[in-house]
């Protein structure tokens, strides 16, 4: 865990900032995204991938890693956060590649899919389709609600949301968030 970087960031500090949420969390991820890019892209490039494919799965990986980090009992044991993060990315990229390949195969020959041997890939395939449907629904949220809920989802405090989006105070931001959250639930009822 004592992985001190030249810039002063440590694993402990990154975890602390991720747990803090909001801007602090975003700054920690910005550091990770930039400073570790060489490390987490390298295994993918070696396996024939390209940086754009990693960027496509990275958002989901960050959200998943965040959920783990937020757990009270989260600990890295012997691995560094960088190794943990890189492994998560490689797994996500490999899954995404497999799904893409299976989709391609299915398009060419529908009889070949599903084989029933896909395991998690099967679930991911379905999930991918759900995400696409979800995106269509989320597009109906409206720009203002999207902005509010995106920040809420990233762990921004009401004060931060109010500051960034120009609400008069925290309470106004909270009211707007409540309204948008309900709208979101209504939309997901259709899902």
């Amino acid at each position, binding site marked *: 865990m004592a992985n001190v970087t030249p810039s002063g960031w440590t694993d402990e500090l990154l975890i602390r900032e991720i747990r803090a949420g909001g801007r602090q969390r975003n700054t920690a991820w910005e550091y990770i995204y930039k400073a570790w890019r060489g490390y987490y892209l390298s295994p993918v490039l*070696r396996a024939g991938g390209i*940086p754009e494919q990693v960027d496509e799965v990275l958002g989901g990986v960050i959200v998943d890693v965040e959920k783990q980090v937020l757990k009270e009992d989260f600990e890295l044991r012997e691995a560094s956060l960088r190794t943990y993060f890189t492994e998560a990315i490689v797994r996500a990229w490999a899954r995404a590649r497999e799904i893409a390949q299976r989709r391609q195969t299915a398009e060419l020959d529908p009889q070949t899919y599903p084989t029933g041997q896909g395991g998690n890939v099967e679930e991911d395939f379905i999930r991918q389709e759900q995400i696409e449907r979800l995106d269509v629904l989320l597009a109906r949220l409206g720009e203002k609600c999207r902005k509010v809920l*995106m920040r809420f989802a990233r762990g921004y405090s009401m004060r931060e949301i109010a500051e960034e989006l120009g609400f008069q105070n925290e309470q106004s931001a909270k009211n707007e968030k409540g309204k948008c959250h309900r709208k979101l*639930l209504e939309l997901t009822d259709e899902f």
Partner: protein
Amino acid sequence: MKKGNAIANSWNSPTNFDMNNNSVFDKIEAWLSGELPEAEARTFEAEMAADTAFAAEVERHRRGREALDRLAEQALQTDMARWRTSLDELPEPPTDVLPTKGTNWLRWILGGLLGFLLVGAAYWFWPSEKAQSDNTPVQEIVPPQTKSHTPIADTPPNEPVNENKDPKEKEENNSPRLIAMAETNLSDLQGAILQQYGQTMGDDDEENPFFTTGLKAFKGTDLKTAKRDLLQVTKTDPFFPSAQEILAYIYFREKNYPKAVQCYESFASQSADPAADWRLLQFYLMDYQHRKADFSKKLGEISDPEKQHRYQKEAVKLKRELGKIGIK
């Protein structure tokens, strides 16, 4: 028991799971986040088990969570697109772990001292440079261009230096002849790079992975892959200058001379090797149109007998050859 009574009472809710009630709404969210105190969480779960309508509402919130996760991903995609445009600018850690104010004062003092020394050095060397200019009429006294250390990835080529050129000289500026001369003088560059970075370097996982894969590709003459990977080596990385040197060669092969010069300039600024000076001169020559001032200055430095540069003779010879084709 009437639906939702227990939990409604425990939250002082006037209605049965009125989902417009912020308190109930927030409680469900808190439970989903694992933020409810133990006792409240048990009550919540008991009510959920007893009331299918309430359980359905909680499930509705859980689906909402998935949608929020997707929004979080979308927010991150936007952030990442922004971060990609400034990969070299690492964010500072929080102020509570930054060096103390005392250390900052020390930095200010050291910075001031360094500035003072630089000003002093400039004052000390200025007359000698002027004298050198008088002795070598081919030279023009021009302010040195600021060396850029920004990554080369997507920066536009340098704008032409605003100079008053006569029409004849303009023709010569674009002459393939100058590029050919530079190419001849750089014929050993690829070999030098391979020798410098060794036969085994690039196989070691401890290096920057991008540099490793980039160098490997370069060794395998896969310049496209080499370029892609080496462009990912960030400015803060110790391998940045080396990556820039190889990129300079790749751009040179692609005939993208402005970028080749930028990369080599970045490398040479970190190198004490006289050969880097000489090669930088060749890079300036290949992009003479934009780098005339830099070329003239560097040529003057290397050809100056007093400076005893290792490539002094070659520089004098180059100056002579250029003189023959009317380049001053």
